[in-house]
């Protein structure tokens, strides 16, 4: 594992850039644990200070240091986004692979559920769930709900990959080698599905972050927890863009863009690494 990482870093410039970007942002986000002031604290600093030597990224209209707000916000938003992504990937992989491999009745049942989920409009459902849950709508619950809404299209993609794998000779061979369905799916098919998982994970992560922001903008967020959406929400409440407090919004967005680019570069290079086609052609048969 460590050797792979070292090789990737040494021989793949895309991976290196992606790795450095992601790591930098991760460390930056991690730093909030050592922030000088608690992230929720307000009005402890002079508000509306533009970026300066003292406040590198300025302060918000709520008297918070944008730098440390961002640090905590990225952490929380990523936590949310990754939770959604991982949960929904698990669902998508499980449903997509089972559906594609088992076929027949199972396929029909699973795909009907899947299509139903595709057809459900996300935002209204989320808002309704939000209403239903009220106080108990903590971020993990929200993440779980979002994950439930965010796996379906990808499950279809995964299904189509599995469907084509199902008739490959090595799958039949595996059956006659006595492998069980989980063994076949996990060991034989998963590596082929991996690129799809990686790719959709990127989009899903962005979708989840977007969802968090959307809900926040619409006023549905836990305002006690700094998140990217929360920062935008508060900036919005203080009409920061109009009032010229651009640093309140610009820096978090830049951070998100950098993080995304980092993750994207990581995803494509890791993808190349695990994609059997390109790896085989590069490694030679």
């Amino acid at each position, binding site marked *: 594992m460590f050797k792979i990482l070292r*090789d990737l870093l040494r*021989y793949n410039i895309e991976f290196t850039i992606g790795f450095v970007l992601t790591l930098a942002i991760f460390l930056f986000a991690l730093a909030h644990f050592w922030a000088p002031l608690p992230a929720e604290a307000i009005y402890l600093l002079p508000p509306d200070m533009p970026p300066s030597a003292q406040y590198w990224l300025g302060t918000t209209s709520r008297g918070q240091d944008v730098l440390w707000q961002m640090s905590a916000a990225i952490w929380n938003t990523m936590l949310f986004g990754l939770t959604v992504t991982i949960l929904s990937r698990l669902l998508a992989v499980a449903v997509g692979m089972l559906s594609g491999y088992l076929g027949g009745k199972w396929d029909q049942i699973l795909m009907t559920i899947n299509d139903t989920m595709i057809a459900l409009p996300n935002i209204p459902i989320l808002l309704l769930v939000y209403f239903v849950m009220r106080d108990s709508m903590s971020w993990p619950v929200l993440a779980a709900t979002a994950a439930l809404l965010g796996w379906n299209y990808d499950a279809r993609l995964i299904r189509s990959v599995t469907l084509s794998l199902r008739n490959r000779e090595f799958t039949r061979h595996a059956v006659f080698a006595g492998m069980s369905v989980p063994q076949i799916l996990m060991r034989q098919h998963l590596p082929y599905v991996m690129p799809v998982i990686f790719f959709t994970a990127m989009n899903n992560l962005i979708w989840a972050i977007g969802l968090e922001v959307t809900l926040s903008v619409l006023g549905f967020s836990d305002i006690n927890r700094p998140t990217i959406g929360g920062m935008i929400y508060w900036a919005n409440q203080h009409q920061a863009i109009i009032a010229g407090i651009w640093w309140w919004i610009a820096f978090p967005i830049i951070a998100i863009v950098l993080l995304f680019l980092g993750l994207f570069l990581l995803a494509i290079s890791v993808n190349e690494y695990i994609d059997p086609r390109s790896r085989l052609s*590069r*490694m*030679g048969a």
Partner: protein
Amino acid sequence: MNADVLKVEGLKAYYQMNYFGVRREVRAVDDVSLTIRRNEIYGIAGESSSGKSSLIKTIAGAITPPLRVVDGSVKFDFDGRTLDVYAEPQAMKGARWQNLSYIMQGSMNVLNPVRKVKHAFHDFAFKHMGLSERDFWAKVEQHLQRIGLDPRVLESYPHQLSGGMRQRLTIALATVCEPDFIIADEPTTALDVLVQQDVLALIKDVQRRMGASIIFVTHDMTVHAAIADRIGIVYAGRLVEEGPTLDVFRRPQHPYTAHLIGSLPRIGDSRKRSALPGKPPNLADPPSGCRFHPRCPLAIDKCKTDNPALLPRQTGRVACWRAGEVEAA
């Protein structure tokens, strides 16, 4: 006019991989020289993975990384115009399909699955023929008919056609411009014997009518027997023997060739035939000296250290320290 259409000299093409710290070099084509004459069918035979396809791809200028030409040259001579495949890529591009066409390995899959067959003809051939649309299609239909295909196949999608039909179509596509030179990789593998025969007859017929030269690869010795004028035997990336088909079959000079010919079964003859002992050589780390020596029944110490050159012998050429001592089994 030069009698040789193709001149390959000292060609070395390696799969060079340097990925994630793993360095590998597969010497798939290692110092191959050969010439092909006008109006000749030249067959290349050899073991699986011996580098046949790599050689022919290199000749066709159809290489993609990691395959790289390390040394040597490939020169065509079309109507007195010499064309170096690797020195003049632009001119090469212009010559494609006009002078030189290619039938890829697995040609069942080379047609765009979502477009009708006719578009392939238009894309590949139209600009070379200098004809009006109408004349062009008339010509194409005529050509298809001549090789036994109903012109209606033009309106089909590839998947609607059987493997044999698709194989014929690619042959039609490769020959419709009447090129001087055709390169074919396993044009008949995976066809059943009846269709295979048709296709071979077709290739031979087309070649004869157009006076074209063909270089083709297959591991199926009977196919070589049927249509090749000369054959070259490849072992572990090297040309080990070359000569007129009949001579090679009747009097193989190289022990590997001898084995290859000898292992062919035949209906009505169920004597036991043995397979080559040992493992195929690893092209990333080929054996020293003569690459065949670990499996060679005649190997002597010299074979282990010294690499025999491909030297003229009677009607052909052979690379073996003990050439001529083999008896066809």
